[in-house]
């Protein structure tokens, strides 16, 4: 039994030794492991680019890493065992600690942290409780990120955003203002449009309700407007005619009459009469319409003169009748005075003769005045007929001169007649009327010549016309009266003073006669120096 025990003891001791060795070896290796782990942790702790700090459960700093030291310029030795509220505000520190102890994490919360330089730096805070292997809280970890740059950046960004916002706001305000302005403008435009519309309506109303007929032809001579009155004149019912030329309109007989007057091209016409039908006489005026020197078309104005014409006719008839009635007693006076003067009713003495002769001359003047009046009314009535016959104008002139010999001699006038050198030929005119014109012009020259004056009468033939002129060196026509020379009842103010004779109708009649022959009549005159009258007649 002993033997066995020894052996067993040795075996047991060996085994124990081995176990011991094994145990020791195991312990050594564990220790090594532990050391390695500690080193690893330390390296990692310092390597992390995050400021880290370990505090005990009362909030006193136990450990910080290098990043912490760098970031806040503190050495661990300087801050070891300092409470957290040394670095942070009481409130923030308390929050961090209590949260951690209650095992609640703080993630990315912005707080301020005191640096060694005394600055309070904005930091982003993370915190978490540290537990031991039994799960008990033994302290807390704090991770801090310096967010100064971020802050700066953020502030800058904020500032920028603010600026931009402000800018935007300003822009918005500006836009608002612009909008208001635009709205105002729009309103103004609208108002202006309304006004234009109103004006247009007004114009339209005026055109429509005008008592004159209006027609407007555009540049292509197409009818673009016709008012109610014009439609009534032409007895048409409306707008189908818009866009037609006058030629196309001429299917209607009344438009044809208008076309005959103003032509397809719409000549400028001023107050020409147009008898559209019985009891409707229109006075037609056609004028080009221009805006800013650009021709936009032609306007045709139709003025109803039926009533005026009727009154004028009545007036003319009245004058003609009165004139005719006046002639009868004047004839009696003429005849009686003539017989007395010719001593057919007994001898009279020289003084009686002189006075009777004055009476006779006055009566003659009266007869000639009435004759002129009749001529005027006839011209105005449009029935001054022109009886064209081949006429020897030279002979007519000569005969007129001869008929005035008495006055010529009385005033001791020198009268020269320059006849054309070419052989004389006859001209187709209304002989009686042309004689009246020539007589009137020569009679005027004599009447308004001074004693010993000179009258130069001349007749010239040209290729297509003849020109007659009478030049005197008499009293002339005052400058301010020249415009009125060819109007009815015109008498020069200086002429009236000198001569009571003269009806003021002669040149009015002369102008009508010459123009009816398609000739022209004019004069040149200087008061006190003399006058020259001219007329031309076309040779056909």
């Amino acid at each position, binding site marked *: 039994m002993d033997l066995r025990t020894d052996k067993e003891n040795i075996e047991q001791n060996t085994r124990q030794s081995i176990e011991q060795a094994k145990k020791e070896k195991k312990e050594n290796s564990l220790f090594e492991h532990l050391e390695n782990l500690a080193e690893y942790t330390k390296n990692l702790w310092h390597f992390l680019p995050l400021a880290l700090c370990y505090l005990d459960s009362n909030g006193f700093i136990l450990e910080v890493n290098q990043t912490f030291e760098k970031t806040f310029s503190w050495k661990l030795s300087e801050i070891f065992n300092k409470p957290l509220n040394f670095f942070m505000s009481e409130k923030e520190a308390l929050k961090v600690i209590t949260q951690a102890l209650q095992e609640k994490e703080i993630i990315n919360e912005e707080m301020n942290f005191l640096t060694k330089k005394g600055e309070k730096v904005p930091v982003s805070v993370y915190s978490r409780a540290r537990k031991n292997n039994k799960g008990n809280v033994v302290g807390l970890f704090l991770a801090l990120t310096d967010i100064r740059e971020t802050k700066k950046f953020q502030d800058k960004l904020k500032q920028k955003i603010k600026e931009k916002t402000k800018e935007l706001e300003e822009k918005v305000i500006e836009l608002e203002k612009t909008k208001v302005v635009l709205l105002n403008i729009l309103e103004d435009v609208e108002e202006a449009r309304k006004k234009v519309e109103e004006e247009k309506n007004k114009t339209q109303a005026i055109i429509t309700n005008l008592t004159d007929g209006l027609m407007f032809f555009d540049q292509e001579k197409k009818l673009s407007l016709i008012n109610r009155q014009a439609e009534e004149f032409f007895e048409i019912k409306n707008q189908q005619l818009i866009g037609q030329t006058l030629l196309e309109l001429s299917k209607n007989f009344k438009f044809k009459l208008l076309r005959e007057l103003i032509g397809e091209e719409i000549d400028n016409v001023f107050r020409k009469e147009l008898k559209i039908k019985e009891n409707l006489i229109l006075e037609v005026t056609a004028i080009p319409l221009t805006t800013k020197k650009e021709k936009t078309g032609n306007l045709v104005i139709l003025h109803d003169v039926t009533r005026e014409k009727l009154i004028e006719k009545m007036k003319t008839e009245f004058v003609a009748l009165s004139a005719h009635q006046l002639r009868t007693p004047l004839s009696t006076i003429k005849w009686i005075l003539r017989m007395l003067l010719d001593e057919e*009713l007994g001898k009279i003495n020289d003084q009686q003769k002189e006075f009777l002769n004055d009476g006779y001359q006055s009566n003659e003047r009266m007869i000639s005045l009435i004759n002129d009046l009749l001529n005027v009314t006839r011209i105005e009535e449009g029935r001054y007929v022109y009886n064209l016959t081949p006429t020897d104008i030279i002979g007519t002139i000569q005969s007129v001169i001869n008929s005035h010999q008495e006055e010529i001699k009385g005033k001791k006038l020198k009268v020269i007649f320059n006849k054309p050198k070419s052989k004389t030929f006859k001209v187709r005119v209304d002989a009686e009327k042309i004689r009246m014109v020539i007589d009137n012009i020569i009679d005027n020259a004599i009447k308004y010549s001074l004693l010993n004056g000179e009258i130069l009468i001349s007749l010239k033939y040209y290729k297509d016309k003849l020109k007659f002129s009478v030049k005197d060196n008499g009293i002339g026509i005052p400058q301010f009266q020249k415009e009125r020379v060819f109007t009815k009842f015109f008498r020069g103010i200086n002429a009236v003073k000198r001569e009571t004779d003269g009806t003021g109708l002669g040149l009015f009649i002369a102008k009508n006669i010459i123009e009816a022959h398609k000739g022209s009549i004019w004069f040149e005159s200087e008061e006190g120096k003399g006058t020259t009258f001219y007329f031309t007649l076309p040779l056909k």
Partner: protein
Amino acid sequence: MAKKVLIIEDDKFLRKVLVRKISAEGYQIVEATDGEKGLKSVEEEKPDLVLLDLVLPEMNGFEVLAKIKKNPNHMISKIPVIVLSNLGEEKDIKKGLELGADDYLIKAYFTPGEILKKIENVLKK
């Protein structure tokens, strides 16, 4: 034998002057104061010449003239007629001459002496 002149004229003063002037030359005068009476006198008196006014009561001168000149009796239609009127328009003159008047005189433009000469001229034909 004195020639017989019929004066158809409604104005008594004109008529008086004419009668005086023409009778002084030895003509026999017959007077009528309107158209109807004038035409009757033409037919009854068969004058050598008629001095005819145009504006007349009852029947105007143109009508009288036409009735004389269109009378089927040659003794009547051949009687010369001088119109003596104050109607002086061409259309009147033309109408008068076309109806067969031998002359057309406007009263206010002619003296009694000139009228007498015209009468003598017509009677000479």
